[in-house]
C-alpha cells in the first residue's frame, strides 16, 4: 500500500484555509517508515499465507489425482518374444512357471517337456507312466494350475493323478559354470529375470533375457546376486482303481474342502463323480488313495458324447457341454449320488458351435467361446425361482463380443478376472470379464494364425500363444484392469448375483475372489448419513438459533450459547463410542417409545406453552409488581436480580424456561406410557418382528410416515382457514378465555392430526401397500437412526453457532422497525429476521452438511459399516470416509484397492468441494437479495 499521497490536482475552487492556530499546534503528518514497513510485511505475509493455503488444498487434490491416475491408464500388450518351437500341433496342456521363464508341455503320449519361454529351446523331458510305458496314450487329461495337480485317464482305462510344477532352488555361485555366470552377469543383475514387483509385474525387458539353461532347468541371477534355478518337477501317484471298464472320455478335477473330487465321463455316457480318500498305513507310512464314487447317466442327445466336462471349484457342480451349446448341470454336492440339476442352452442360434469352454478363476464362471466370436460368461445364481433342483440357474452375466471370427482358444487367469481369447483370424485379445472391457489386442502374423494353445502366466504378467510352429509372448501392462468408470459408478453384474448391482466388497477370504469396487454404496451411505443427521440436527439447531437470538434476553443468551457450543468440544470418537455402545443397545430396547417421543415431546412443549398462556401474564405481572415493590423498598439485594427478574417479560421468560424443563420429562413419560399401547396397536406387539415383516400389516409404517405429513397438512390448514376465522373472536374475547379456547383448539388439532394420519394409513393399507422395506424395514442395531441422533448431536453446535451469529447480525434497526409496526417477536423473527439472515442460515446448514459428509468416527462406530444401498432408517450403511478409515490400513500400497480408496477420498473431496461451491453460490445469491443494508 503506497501511502504516498497522489498529488491533488489544483482545484479551481479555493476553499478558505482553515484557521489554524499558528505555532506549535501545527504538525507535519507523515506515516512513519516503521508503519509502512509493518504494513508491507503484513501484506506480503498475508498474501503468502493465502497463496499457501490455496496451494496446499490444490496439492492435496493433486496428490489424490496423482495416486488415482494409474487406475485409468490404458492397458497394453507389448510383444516380448517370438521363437520357433520344436513340436507341432496342439498339446494337451501347457504350464507356465511363476516367473514366465519356461513352460511345460504335456503331450498325448504322456511326455512332458519343458521349454524356455523366450527361445523355445527344450530344457527338460519327463515321461508319465515310465514303468509300463507300452504305447498307451492319454484319453483324458485335466490340470489345475492353482494347485499344480493333474489327473489323467489312459486309454487302457486307468486313472492317474499327480503333480507337475517347477521347483526353485538356489545354486551356489561356485557350482555355476564360468561361461554361464559371465553371461548372466553381463545381462546385468538389475535387469535379470523378472523383478518380483507386485505393482508393475511387467518387466522392462522381454522375459528371461538373463536366463541360461543349466542342469535341465533355467538359471537366473536375482537382483540380490543369487543364482536361482527353476526345474521341471513331475510327481506321479500309483494308478487308481475305479469301477467299470468303459474308457474315460472327459475328465475334470477340483479341490474341495474334504479332498480332491474327480468327475469323468465314460464312453458309455455315464457321469462318474469320485472323491479321493487317502489312507496312510501306519506301519509302512505308505499312502494309498482310493476313490469313493457314484455315477449317473447323462442324457445323450442323438447319442453324441459331450465335448466338455467341467467340475466347479468346490466340486459340487458338474457341467457337461456339447458343441451345439447344450449344457447339462449336475449337482454333485454328494459325490456318491450325482443328480441332474438342469439344462441350459448356451447358444440360441442353431448353426453356431461352442468352440471352447474354460473356467474363470474360482472355477465358478464358465467362459464359453463360440464360432460367432462371442465369449459369454455364465455362472449359477440364486434367483429365487425354484425351477432347478438346487434353486440356482445358470445366467449369462457377460458377453464379450469383439470380433466376428470364431473363438479358437480361451485362457483364464488363475488369480483375477482376466480372460485371453485367440480368434480364428489370428487376433489375440485380452478382456477383463467383470467390466466386460477389452483391455488390449494384438494380431498374429498371417502365416501363424492358428493358435493351438493360449496361456496366461501365473502372475498375469505375460501372455503366451503357441501356434503350429511358433511361440509368441507378450507382456501384459494392466496393473488395474478391474477399474473403469462403469465399474466404479455403474451397476455391474458380479459372479453369483442374479442381476447387475452396485456393490462394494474389496476383499474376501479367498484369492480368486472377484473384487467389487462399486463406489455407489459408499456415496449412498455418505448421503444417507448426511440426510438423516441433518434431518435430526438441522431443525433443532436452526430453531434453537432462532429462539436464542430472538426470544432470549441477552443475559440468558450469554449462558445458553456457550453451553450449546460446548457440545462441539466432545470428540467425535467419544460420540461414536457412546452411540455404538450405549445408545444403540438402549434404542433397540425402547424403539417404540423413542419413535413416540418424536411426537409426544413437541406435543408436551406446545401443550405447556398453550397452558401457560392461561394466567401466566397476569400471574407474572403480579409477581413482578410485588418484587419490584420489594426491590424499591430495598429488601432485595442487587445480586438477586438475576434470579428474580423484575421486568415481567423477563419473568415470563423464566416461566417459559420452567415450562420447557418440565415439558421434556412430561413428553418422555407420555411416550413411555403410550409406548407399549402403540406397539400393540400398530406394530403387532413386537416392533422388531414387525419391522422384519414377520407380523402385522403396513398400517404402522404408513402411520409413522404419514404423521409428519399430516402435521404439515393440519398446520397449513389451521393457518389458512382456522386462524383467520379465529381472529375476530380473539379481538372480542378476554385473554383468559381466548387462551382456554386456544388450548382446546390445540388439543382438537392434535386429535385431528392423529386421526388424519391413521385414516390415510388405513386407506393405504387397505389398498395393499406396505412401505416396510423402503424407508422403514428390518432393524439392525447400528443404524441410520443412531447415526442421525449422534451425528445430529455433533452438527447441532456448528449449525447453531453459525446460524445464531447470522441471526444476531441482522441489524437491530430491522427488528425495531418490525416491532414498532406492531409485529410480535415471532412474526418479526419469521418475516424479517430469518429471511434477512437466510444466507447465513443457509451457510450454517452447509457447514453442518460438510461436517456430516466428512465425519468419520461416528459413522465408523455407529453405522455398522455395511455397504448397502437401502434407505431404511433402521439399517446400517458405510460412508466413504468410514470406508477409507477401515480399509486403507490393510490395503497394499499402490494396489488397485489402495488406489480405489484414494479415489474414494477424491470423491469425498469433490463432494465437499461441490457442496461448498454450490452453497457459496446460493449463499451469495441470497445475500445479494437480502443484505443490501
Amino acid at each position: 500500500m503506497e501511502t504516498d499521497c497522489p498529488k491533488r490536482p489544483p482545484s479551481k475552487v479555493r476553499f478558505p484555509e482553515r484557521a489554524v492556530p499558528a505555532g506549535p499546534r501545527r504538525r507535519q503528518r507523515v506515516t512513519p517508515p516503521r508503519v509502512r514497513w509493518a504494513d508491507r510485511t503484513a501484506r506480503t505475509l498475508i498474501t503468502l499465507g493465502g497463496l499457501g493455503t490455496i496451494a496446499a488444498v490444490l496439492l492435496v487434490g493433486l496428490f489424490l489425482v496423482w495416486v488415482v491416475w494409474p487406475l485409468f491408464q490404458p492397458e497394453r500388450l507389448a510383444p516380448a518374444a517370438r521363437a520357433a518351437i520344436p513340436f507341432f500341433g496342439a498339446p494337451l496342456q501347457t504350464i507356465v512357471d511363476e516367473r514366465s521363464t519356461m513352460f511345460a508341455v504335456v503331450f498325448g503320449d504322456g511326455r512332458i517337456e519343458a521349454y524356455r519361454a523366450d527361445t523355445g529351446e527344450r530344457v527338460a523331458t519327463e515321461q508319465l507312466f515310465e514303468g509300463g510305458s507300452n504305447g498307451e496314450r492319454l484319453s483324458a487329461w485335466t490340470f489345475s494350475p492353482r494347485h499344480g495337480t493333474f489327473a489323467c485317464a489312459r486309454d487302457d482305462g486307468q486313472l492317474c493323478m499327480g503333480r507337475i510344477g517347477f521347483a526353485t532352488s538356489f545354486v551356489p555361485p561356485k557350482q555355476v559354470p564360468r561361461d554361464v555366470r559371465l553371461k548372466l552377469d553381463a545381462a546385468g543383475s538389475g535387469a535379470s529375470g523378472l523383478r518380483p514387483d507386485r505393482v508393475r509385474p511387467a518387466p522392462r525387458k522381454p522375459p528371461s533375457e538373463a536366463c541360461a539353461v543349466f542342469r535341465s532347468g533355467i538359471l537366473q541371477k536375482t537382483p540380490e546376486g543369487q543364482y536361482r534355478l527353476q526345474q521341471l518337477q513331475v510327481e506321479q501317484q500309483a494308478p487308481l482303481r475305479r469301477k467299470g471298464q468303459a474308457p474315460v472320455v472327459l475328465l475334470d478335477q477340483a479341490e474341495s474342502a474334504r479332498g480332491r473330487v474327480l468327475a469323468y465321463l465314460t464312453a458309455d455316457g455315464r457321469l462318474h463323480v469320485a472323491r479321493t480318500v487317502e489312507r496312510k498305513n501306519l506301519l509302512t507310512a505308505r499312502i494309498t488313495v482310493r476313490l469313493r464314487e457314484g455315477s449317473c447317466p447323462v442324457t445323450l442327445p442323438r447319442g453324441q458324447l459331450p465335448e466338455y466336462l467341467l467340475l466347479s471349484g468346490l466340486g459340487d457342480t458338474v457341467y457337461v457341454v456339447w458343441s451345439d451349446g447344450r449344457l447339462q448341470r449336475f449337482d454333485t454336492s454328494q459325490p456318491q449320488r450325482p443328480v441332474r440339476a438342469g439344462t441350459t442352452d448356451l447358444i440360441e442360434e442353431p448353426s453356431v458351435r461352442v468352440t471352447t469352454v474354460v473356467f474363470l478363476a474360482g472355477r465358478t464362471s464358465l467362459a464359453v467361446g463360440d464360432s460367432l466370436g462371442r465369449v459369454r460368461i455364465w455362472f449359477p445364481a440364486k434367483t429365487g425361482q425354484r425351477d432347478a433342483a438346487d434353486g440356482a440357474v445358470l445366467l449369462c452375466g457377460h458377453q464379450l463380443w469383439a470380433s466376428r471370427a470364431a473363438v479358437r482358444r480361451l485362457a483364464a487367469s488363475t488369480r483375477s478376472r482376466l480372460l485371453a481369447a485367440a480368434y480364428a483370424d489370428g487376433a489375440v485379445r485380452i478382456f477383463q470379464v467383470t467390466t466386460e472391457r477389452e483391455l488390449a489386442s494384438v494380431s498374429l502374423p498371417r502365416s501363424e494364425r492358428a493358435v493351438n494353445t493360449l496361456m496366461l502366466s501365473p502372475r498375469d504378467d505375460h501372455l503366451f500363444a503357441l501356434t503350429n510352429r511358433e511361440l509368441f509372448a507378450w507382456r501384459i501392462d494392466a496393473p488395474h484392469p478391474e477399474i473403469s468408470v462403469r465399474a466404479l459408478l455403474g451397476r455391474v453384474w458380479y459372479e453369483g448375483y442374479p442381476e447387475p448391482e452396485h456393490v462394494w466388497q474389496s476383499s474376501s477370504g479367498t484369492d480368486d475372489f472377484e473384487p467389487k469396487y462399486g463406489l455407489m454404496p459408499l456415496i449412498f451411505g455418505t448421503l444417507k448419513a448426511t440426510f438423516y443427521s441433518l434431518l435430526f440436527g438441522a431443525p433443532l439447531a436452526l430453531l434453537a438459533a432462532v429462539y436464542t437470538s430472538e426470544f432470549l434476553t441477552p443475559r440468558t443468551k450469554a449462558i445458553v450459547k456457550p453451553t450449546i457450543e460446548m457440545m462441539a468440544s466432545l470428540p467425535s470418537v467419544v460420540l461414536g463410542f457412546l452411540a455404538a455402545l450405549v445408545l444403540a443397545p438402549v434404542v433397540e430396547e425402547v424403539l417404540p417409545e423413542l419413535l413416540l417421543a418424536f411426537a409426544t415431546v413437541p406435543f408436551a412443549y406446545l401443550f405447556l406453552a398453550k397452558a401457560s398462556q392461561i394466567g401466566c401474564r397476569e400471574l407474572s405481572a403480579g409477581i413482578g409488581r410485588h418484587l419490584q415493590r420489594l426491590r424499591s423498598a430495598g429488601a432485595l439485594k442487587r445480586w438477586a436480580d438475576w434470579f428474580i427478574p423484575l421486568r415481567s417479560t423477563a419473568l415470563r421468560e423464566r416461566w417459559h424456561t420452567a415450562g420447557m424443563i418440565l415439558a421434556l420429562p412430561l413428553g418422555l413419560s407420555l411416550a413411555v406410557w403410550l409406548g407399549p399401547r402403540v406397539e400393540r396397536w400398530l406394530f403387532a406387539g413386537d416392533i422388531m418382528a414387525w419391522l422384519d415383516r414377520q407380523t402385522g400389516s403396513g398400517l404402522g409404517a404408513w402411520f409413522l410416515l404419514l404423521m409428519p405429513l399430516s402435521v404439515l397438512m393440519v398446520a397449513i390448514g389451521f393457518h389458512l382457514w382456522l386462524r383467520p376465522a379465529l381472529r375476530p373472536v380473539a379481538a372480542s374475547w378476554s385473554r383468559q378465555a381466548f387462551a382456554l379456547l386456544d388450548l382446546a383448539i390445540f388439543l382438537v388439532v392434535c386429535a385431528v392430526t392423529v386421526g388424519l394420519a391413521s385414516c390415510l394409513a388405513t386407506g393405504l393399507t387397505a389398498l395393499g401397500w406396505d412401505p416396510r422395506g423402503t424407508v422403514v424395514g428390518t432393524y439392525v442395531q447400528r443404524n441410520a437412526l443412531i447415526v442421525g441422533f449422534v451425528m445430529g448431536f455433533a452438527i447441532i453446535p456448528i449449525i447453531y453457532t453459525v446460524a445464531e451469529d447470522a441471526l444476531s447480525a441482522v441489524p437491530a434497526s430491522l427488528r425495531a422497525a418490525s416491532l414498532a409496526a406492531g409485529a410480535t417477536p415471532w412474526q418479526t423473527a419469521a418475516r424479517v429476521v430469518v429471511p434477512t439472515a437466510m444466507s447465513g442460515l443457509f451457510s450454517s446448514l452447509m457447514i453442518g452438511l460438510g461436517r456430516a459428509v466428512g465425519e468419520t468416527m461416528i459413522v465408523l462406530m455407529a453405522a455398522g459399516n455395511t455397504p448397502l444401498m437401502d434407505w431404511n432408517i433402521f439399517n446400517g450403511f458405510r460412508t466413504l470416509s468410514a470406508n477409507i478409515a477401515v480399509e486403507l490400513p490393510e490395503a497394499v500400497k499402490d494396489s488397485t484397492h489402495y488406489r480405489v480408496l484414494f479415489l474414494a477420498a477424491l470423491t469425498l473431496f469433490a463432494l465437499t468441494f461441490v457442496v461448498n461451491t454450490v452453497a457459496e453460490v446460493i449463499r451469495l445469491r441470497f445475500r445479494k437479495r437480502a443484505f443490501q443494508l
Partner: protein
Amino acid sequence: MSLQTTSVDSPSLSPAKDSPADQPHGAVLGGPGPQCEARQEADDAVPLSARAEIHEKVRNEPCILEIESFSLWYGPKQALFNVTMPIPEGKVTALIGPSGCGKSTLIRCINRMNDLIDSVRTEGDIRLRGNSILAPDVDVIQLRKRMGMVFQKPNPFPMSIFENVVYPLRIDGERNRRVLSEVCERSLRDAALWEEVKDRLKESGLRLSGGQQQRLCIARAIAGQPEVLLLDEPCSALDPIATAKIEDLIHQLRGEYTIVIVTHNMQQASRVSDYTAFMYLGRLVEYGPTEEIFTRPRLSETEAYITGRFG
C-alpha cells in the same frame, strides 16, 4: 399571551438524585469525549432552571398522550429526568434539543420500544387516552399497532417496496390483494413516493435512495393507520426537496394523526409543528406553541439554543 409559569412538582418516588436541582450536570453525564466538552461549554453558557416551562396553551389542549414525571435509566445512567409532557391530539409536536439530550429515548418510550433494551428501567407514567401504557398487563403489540414510528435512520426491510409498505397489514393477517394494493398506493401517495416507485413495486426496498427509503418507512408507518405517528428525525438523511415533501406530508397528515417529530432543524420545527418542546440533558426545558417558542421563548436556555448559540 399569558406569561404564567406552570411548574410541575415532582412526586419524589425515586431517590434524591432524581431531583434535577441538586445534581451537577457534569457529574450525571460526565464522560470523556467531545460531547462532554460541548456540554460542559453549554453548562457554562446556559444555566438550567429546575422546572420545565410548559406554556399554558399546551395544557389547555385536549391531549392524547400524557407523559407524567417520567424518568428513565439505561443501566446506572439516567437518560430522562422527570419529564412531564402532555401531547395534544391531532397536532404536530416537535421535540428539539441538542444531540444526546434524550429526544429519541423519550419518543421510543411512547411505543415502548425501549423494552427491547434489557438495561432500561423507568419511573413515572405515560398514558395513552388516559390508560397507562406502562402497566404490566398492557399488550405491547396492540399498543404498537396504534402507533407508527419512523426512525432516525431509514430501515426498510429487505423485501419488495410493496411488501414493505403493507407489512403492518400483513402481520395483521390481511391477505386480500385488493385491500393491500389500495393501502399500498394510498400510503405511498401520502408519503409522496408513489410517483417515483409506482412502476417498480416489486423491486427491493433497499434499491431506493436514502431519502426514498425514509419516505418508504413513513409510508409503512402510516399504512397501519395509527393514532400517533412518531417521527424520529425523519429528514436527517434527506435533501431539501425530499424534506419539503415530507414536510408537506406532515402538513397533510395534521389533524388526522397526532404527530410527534424529533428534529434538529429549527426551521423545520417552526414550519411543521404546532407545539415545540425543547429538551436539554434529559430534561424537558420549555414546551409551548411553536411560534411562541421560536419568537418569545421564556427561558434563556431555549433562546440560546434556538438562536444557535450552542447545540
